[in-house]
Structure formats: structure tokens, C-alpha cells
């Protein structure tokens, strides 16, 4: 007999419908799965069999063939277990096809028949049709984010079968106990002094400008970067759903309520592998750090220590907001729309430019060269961050709080979106020139900066977008004033990464 059950698998951050066809026929007893299952999926064979038997159900001593359609798609993970078990029960006549109907099933099975949560339920739920969706208790919240199905759950296979057969009501999902008390958001008010860095954070948040902070260890670079998400406001609507999908696909825990509201902040260590940064690896193409930081902030501390391959791979996401990961037989496009905050020491030992620095010229040159070129071009804001003085730490009152800055940022962002771009940093070419003309006094500054080589042709356009953001924050009229341009210039410190000269004449 044949049974057809609907389930799904996840690929990158996108779900794909998988139809599980189970055929039970006479022949030598056996269990085969076809249709490109990966290792975890192929192991379903043993889990499904044990789960059926330990749930007090009969395992047919017949030839069982499971086909996962479409056959061209690689299936990964254990999320198809439940669908296979239900299929076997229907095909062996233990459950009526009508009792299953067009329900979708996404859960992994334990050997005792219990249902287990799987990563990526959100994107999978978004594609599975039908009125009802059965998932493990741990996935209920996530599945409900997609407001599409009646989401059902049960502790074990037996309970699912009973509910399907109408012999028992669907068990109520257990109350969700928040898995972790979420730390309160970090507030900019904790930062003492640091006017320049604060200003740079505000402009970065308002205009979507990537930021580079250079300074000695202990200068507060990490502290500042951690507070950037609080300036970006909460996630809402589509953006929240996109961010949650990525976290779901990566199997990360979601906040109570299911939907991600707080902006993600990801700070991968510089030893992170290329795959962990950009995604891929398994057949499911797990999203990497750049995707997990999507709609939020990606903080790369010790930028100069990251392998050149990783820095190179950041170019596409910085340019297009997505990252395409390709393997021999499949490729996925993952979201990677993040705000980059990079930090580095002025030199490997951290003491430059003071003569205490004991780095050799060659070391320094190598350290800086890594950051040069393509990646540096995309960092519109570049500032020096010095450790606060003792007086600043002890005597200064707390600075302005995040909420106050965030409201200015939100206003500026609105102005940017009225121009038809998500943020000013996306403005290019003629449109930029039309939207952001220079006032005559500002033009003089720009001309001089171009003459002295302080600004390059490409740098000019990037500086212009920053100046426009500064103008937006000041509720200006779009004409770039002298002070907006001057500020944009001085927040674009000229770190000579190409051929650093320390003592050269």
C-alpha cells in the first residue's frame, strides 16, 4: 500500500516542501530510503523503526520503501522522522489515510517514540501547506510565528496517532518556560566620555555606515560596539521574520514569543573558519555569522587578525546584503544585511604610535596590509578610540541614553527611506549627487581635500553619504553644509593601511 505525507526540509534559510512517499509491499523484509537523504536523514531508518515499535505499534514485516520527493533536492536532518513513521503506519493499514488528511509533520523521533525539536521550523512551516502542522513541543512557538496553520504538538508518536485517529484530543502544548533570562539591553549611557565614538555610532546607525575603530587594547571598542544594536531600534515586521528565520535555521534558541525583537549582535572570534563566517558546511547549508548578524550588527574585533579569505568573503555581503554560498551541486542565497563594526589595534602590540611600540616594520606592514583595499573602502567611518582618562571614568555623569539617540536615528532613517533606499549608505552615483549637493563653503573644503590627496574619488562619494546622514540627523535640508562635510571628513581618519609609514622621512 502507498501513503503520501507532507513534510519539509531546510536549505540555507529557505524551507522546501518534501513529500514523503511510503510504499509497503510483500517481499523480503527491509527498509530503504531513497531521494538524496544525508547521513542524519538516512539514520531515520533505525529511529523510525524503534520509535514505532516502542510506541506499542506494529512494524510491518514487509518490504518498505520511502521516497523523499522531489528527488533532486538534498534532504538533511531528522525533521522527516515523524512523517516517515506516520507514512509507515498509514501504508501498513494501522492508520486511515483520511485521519491524516493534508496535515504536515516536522519532528525528529527518539527511540522511545518521543517527538524532538529540530532547527529551522520557522522557514519550513512557511512553505508546508495544509490546515494543520504537527511539530515537537519545543518548536510550537516557532511554527506559530508563521500565522498559517493550526499548530499541533504531542509528547510522543503514540499520542500523535491517538489524536489523529480521534481516540484522544490533541494534548495541550506545555507552557513555555523561558529557557534563559535575557540580559537587559546594553545602554549607551554606560559609556563615559567618548564623544567622537558616540557620534560615530549615531551616524553609523542612522545611515547604515560601516565603522572601523582603531585604538589600543582596553580603549572601550568592544563596549561601544555592543551598544550599537540599541541605537537601531527594535525589529518589526518583515525584518523580524527574516532575522528569526535565520536564527531558526541555525538552530539557535529563540526568545519567548518566538519572534526575534532585539537586533542581533554577533561577534565571531578571529579564529572562526570561513564556513562558520559565511555559511555552508552541511547539506542544509547552515547560515554563518554574517547571516546571523543580518538586520543587526556584525562586530569583528581584531580585524587585522582575521584570515584574508574571510575578509575577502565579506565583500559580497557588504555590497549586496546577501551572500551566495555555492557547492558543487547546490547553492543557496542567505541574507547578510548587517552593519559592520570592525575594531583593531593600531599595531600588533597595541602601543603605536608611541615609541613604546616594539613591532617591527615588517610586522606592522603585514598587520595593516590585511585590512587594506576592498574592505577598508567599505568602512565609511574610521575613528581612533582612546581609553577614557581616569577623570572621565570617575567624574563624568552618565552620557545620553540609547533611547534618546535611537529616536534621532529613527527620524534620520525615515528620511533615508523617503529617498527610496534602506539607508543613506546605499545611495550611489547621480542620485547621490542630486540628493546631496554641496553648499559653496563645503565645496571649498572638498576641493582642498581632493587636492591634498586626503580624499580619493571613491572616498568622495562615501564621504558624501556620511555627510548626508549628518545633515539628516541635524534635520537639514539635504544641502551639505561646511560642518557636515568637515565632520564626515574627520570621522574618516586616514589610516594608512597600504604602506604604513611610522618613522619614514
Amino acid at each position, binding site marked *: 500500500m502507498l501513503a503520501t505525507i507532507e513534510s519539509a526540509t531546510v536549505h540555507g534559510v529557505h524551507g522546501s516542501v518534501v513529500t514523503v512517499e511510503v510504499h509497503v509491499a510483500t517481499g523480503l523484509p527491509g527498509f530503504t530510503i531513497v531521494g538524496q537523504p544525508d547521513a542524519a536523514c538516512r539514520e531515520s531508518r533505525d529511529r523510525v523503526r524503534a520509535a514505532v515499535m516502542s510506541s506499542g505499534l506494529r512494524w510491518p514485516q514487509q518490504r518498505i520503501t520511502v521516497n523523499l520527493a522531489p528527488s533532486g533536492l538534498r534532504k538533511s536532518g531528522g525533521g522527516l522522522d515523524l512523517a516517515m513513521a506516520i507514512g509507515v503506519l498509514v501504508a501498513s493499514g494501522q492508520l486511515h489515510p483520511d485521519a491524516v488528511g493534508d496535515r504536515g509533520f516536522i519532528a525528529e523521533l527518539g527511540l522511545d517514540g518521543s517527538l524532538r525539536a529540530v532547527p529551522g521550523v520557522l522557514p519550513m512551516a512557511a512553505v508546508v501547506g495544509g490546515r494543520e502542522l504537527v511539530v515537537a513541543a519545543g518548536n510550537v512557538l516557532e511554527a506559530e510565528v508563521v500565522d498559517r496553520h493550526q499548530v499541533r504538538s504531542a509528547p510522543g508518536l503514540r499520542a500523535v496517532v491517538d489524536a489523529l485517529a480521534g481516540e484522544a484530543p490533541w494534548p495541550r502544548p506545555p507552557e513555555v518556560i523561558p529557557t534563559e533570562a535575557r540580559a537587559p539591553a546594553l545602554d549607551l549611557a554606560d559609556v563615559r*566620555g*567618548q*564623544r*567622537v*565614538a558616540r*557620534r560615530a555610532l549615531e551616524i553609523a546607525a542612522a545611515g547604515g555606515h560601516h565603522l572601523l575603530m*582603531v585604538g589600543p587594547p582596553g580603549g572601550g571598542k568592544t563596549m561601544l560596539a555592543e551598544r550599537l544594536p540599541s541605537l537601531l531600534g527594535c525589529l518589526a515586521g518583515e525584518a523580524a521574520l527574516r532575522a528569526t528565520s535565520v536564527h531558526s535555521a541555525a538552530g539557535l534558541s529563540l526568545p519567548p514569543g518566538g519572534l526575534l525583537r532585539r537586533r542581533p549582535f554577533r561577534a565571531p572570534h578571529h579564529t572562526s573558519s570561513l564556513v562558520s563566517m559565511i555559511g555552508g558546511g552541511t547539506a542544509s547549508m547552515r547560515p554563518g555569522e554574517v547571516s546571523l548578524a543580518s538586520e543587526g550588527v556584525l562586530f569583528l574585533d581584531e580585524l587585522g587578525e582575521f584570515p584574508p579569505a574571510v575578509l575577502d568573503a565579506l565583500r559580497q555581503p557588504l555590497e549586496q546584503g546577501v551572500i551566495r554560498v555555492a557547492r558543487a551541486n547546490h547553492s543557496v542565497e542567505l541574507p547578510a544585511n548587517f552593519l559592520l563594526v570592525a575594531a583593531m589595534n*593600531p599595531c600588533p602590540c597595541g602601543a603605536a*604610535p*608611541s*615609541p*613604546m*611600540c616594539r613591532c617591527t*616594520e615588517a610586522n606592522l606592514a603585514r598587520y595593516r596590509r590585511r585590512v587594506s583595499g576592498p574592505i577598508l573602502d567599505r568602512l565609511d567611518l*574610521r*575613528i*581612533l*578610540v*582612546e581609553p577614557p582618562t581616569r577623570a*572621565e571614568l570617575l567624574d563624568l555623569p552618565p552620557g545620553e541614553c540609547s533611547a534618546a539617540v535611537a529616536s534621532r536615528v529613527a527620524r534620520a532613517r525615515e528620511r533615508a527611506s523617503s529617498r527610496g533606499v534602506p539607508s543613506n549608505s546605499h545611495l550611489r552615483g547621480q542620485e547621490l549627487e542630486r540628493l546631496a549637493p554641496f553648499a559653496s563653503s563645503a565645496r571649498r*573644503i572638498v576641493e*582642498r*581635500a581632493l587636492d*591634498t590627496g*586626503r580624499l580619493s574619488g571613491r572616498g568622495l562619494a562615501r564621504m558624501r553619504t556620511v555627510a548626508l546622514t*549628518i545633515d539628516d540627523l541635524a534635520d537639514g535640508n539635504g544641502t551639505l553644509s*561646511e*560642518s*557636515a*562635510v*568637515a*565632520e564626515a*571628513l*574627520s*570621522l574618516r*581618519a*586616514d*589610516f*594608512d593601511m597600504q*604602506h604604513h609609514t*611610522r*618613522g*619614514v*622621512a
Partner: protein
Amino acid sequence: MTTSSEARAAALLAFMQLSDVGPARGRQLAAKRDPLGAWDAIRCGKPTIDGASRDLERLWMSEAARLDPLAELQRHRAAGVTITVLGDADYPEVLAADRQPPPLLLSKGAWPVAVPCCAIVGTRRCSRYGRDVASSLGRDLAAAGVSVVSGLALGIDGAAHLGALAAGGAPPIGVVACGLDVPYPRRHATLWEQVASAGVLVSEWPLGTAPMRWRFPARNRLIATLATVVVVVESDVGGGSMHTVRQADDRGRTVLAVPGPVTSPASHGTNLLLAEGCGPCRDADDVVVALGLAGGASLPSRGRLRADAAHPEVPRGAHDVLDRLGATRWSLEGLAEATGRSVGDLSVVLVELEGTGAVVCSDGWYEAAR
């Protein structure tokens, strides 16, 4: 060059390429009646040089097997290098009079004749102040007819020579610690060529010799010997320039130090020298006086360094920022904090000052341009 001196040059060119051979051992070989015979003895592993261990002699034996003195002489001549051996008529007198003369001198360019020499030395990790002073000193001294001697290193050395080259006066002398065909630091390769064509580039090492650590103190001794006055522009207390100063003291040369901010680590060494009684060097005139050159009508007028400091125009409202800058390096943050100005307001002033050249910004640090 006579035949015997040619033989000595050939033997030395080969010998100086062996491991652990410095000027002292070179002098031993040069003093032999038959240097090429001595070379053959070394090649056979016979004890020839005093103080060389048995192991070293064995090492020399294997290294010498690959070297042919006459071919070395050919190679150096083909490369256009002038070879001078201790005892030759054209060997510089000032070096010949020293107690540690180099047995062999290789040079490119022409030796300045009857010109006073002043060494300008200092740290590689110099501040902008040090660089500016070194370059002005180099320029003014060259213009005053004083040859600038330096080591062509990064920082002060390079700045001094660049200044001297710009003036186009007395020919500069560059003393290096490796082969003349091994520009080190590589970034100064052009500067090497410029010094060689305007003045002379000197080394006591055969072509192809790598810049090893221990060769730099030997180079410092040459600088101290060649110069009549040694000016230290900026140096840390433990810097290599302090070694040059000791060498100069041993040889009775006059040492002058450029005063620097007491807070600047790059000036710790020079300020220490001043505290110990060494003469100050404020500008080229101080050097000229120390050299005992009278008159001064042809010299750049006193106070030239300081005269440059007065910038013709300072934009209105920028004086407080310029005063703040003083002689130290400031970050934007530090200036905003110190002046109490907003980042935007301060930026306008700084951009103005940068435009007039009163302030320079590098790596995010702002400094008054002297």
C-alpha cells in the same frame, strides 16, 4: 691600485664574506704579507687568523671552497663599485687615523674632498617633530657646505639625508651596514641611489652581505669616525644612536643633542645627553659653531627653524585649537574633550587648519606642523 693592493682587495673581498668575520679579523688578513697565500691557508683549514677556533676554521674551510678571490674582485668591478683597501693612497685619511679602521671600503659615488662632516643620527621611531628637525638640519647644513653623514635608516637618518639632498649643497655620505646592492630598509632603495649619485654611499662589506644585527654597531663606529660633530636628533635611552654617541665620545668627537619635550619618549635619550652636559643643537648654526667654522655670512640665519613655525594665516576661531595642539599628538576625541567643542564644530576648525598646512593629520592623530 697596485698589484699587491689588488691581491689584498681580492683576498679581503672573499674573506669578509665568511661567517663571523668582522673588521678586526679583516685587518689581520690585510696585515699579512701575502694575503692571497693566507686565503689559501684558510681554504685548506690551516690556522691563519688569531683567535679563530678550530670549529670556525673548519667552517671557513667549507665556505671558502665556494669562493674565488679573483672572481670576487671581477664581480665587484663589474658592478661599478669602488674598492679601497687600508693603506691605499686614496683611502680616507680620517678613517686611516682611526684605531679601528675598516680593512676594506666599498663605495659608490665620489668622496667629498676637504669638506667638514656632521653626522645626524636618531631613532627610527621618531616623532614628527624629530623628523622635521632632522630634515631642516640636513637641508641647512648641506646648504652651508657641511656634508651630512648618516646611516640611511628609517626615521631621523632618512629625514636628514632627504633634507640634505633637497638643499643640493655639500655631498651627503651614507654609511650602510650591508652590501651596497642590498638596499635596507627596502623602502629607502631610492634614497640609496640618490645619495650615491649626489655624494657617496659607503660600506665595509662585500656586495650581497645581509644586514645582520651585529653589523649596525660597526656601522655606527664608521659614522662616528667620519663625522667631526655628531648630532642626535631624537633617541630613546637604549637606542642605537646612543651607541653612536659612545663611539663618538671615544674618538673625541663633539656630540650635540636636540632638546625635545620631556614627555616624549623619543626624546628621553637626547634630553638625558643634555642633562649630562652635552651641547644643545637648536639649528644648523649650533653645528657650524661646533665645527669651528667662523663667519656665518653664508650660513642660514639663526632662528630659521623657529621662523618656519609662525604660520602666516590662522583661521579665525582656530587659535585655541592650535594652542592646545602644542608639541604633542592629539586624537579628535582628546581635542574635543580639551576644547569643549562639538565634533562637528571642531572638525570645521581642523579641516581649515589642515588646509592652511598648520596642522597635519596622520593615522587619525593631529599634530601642529611645527
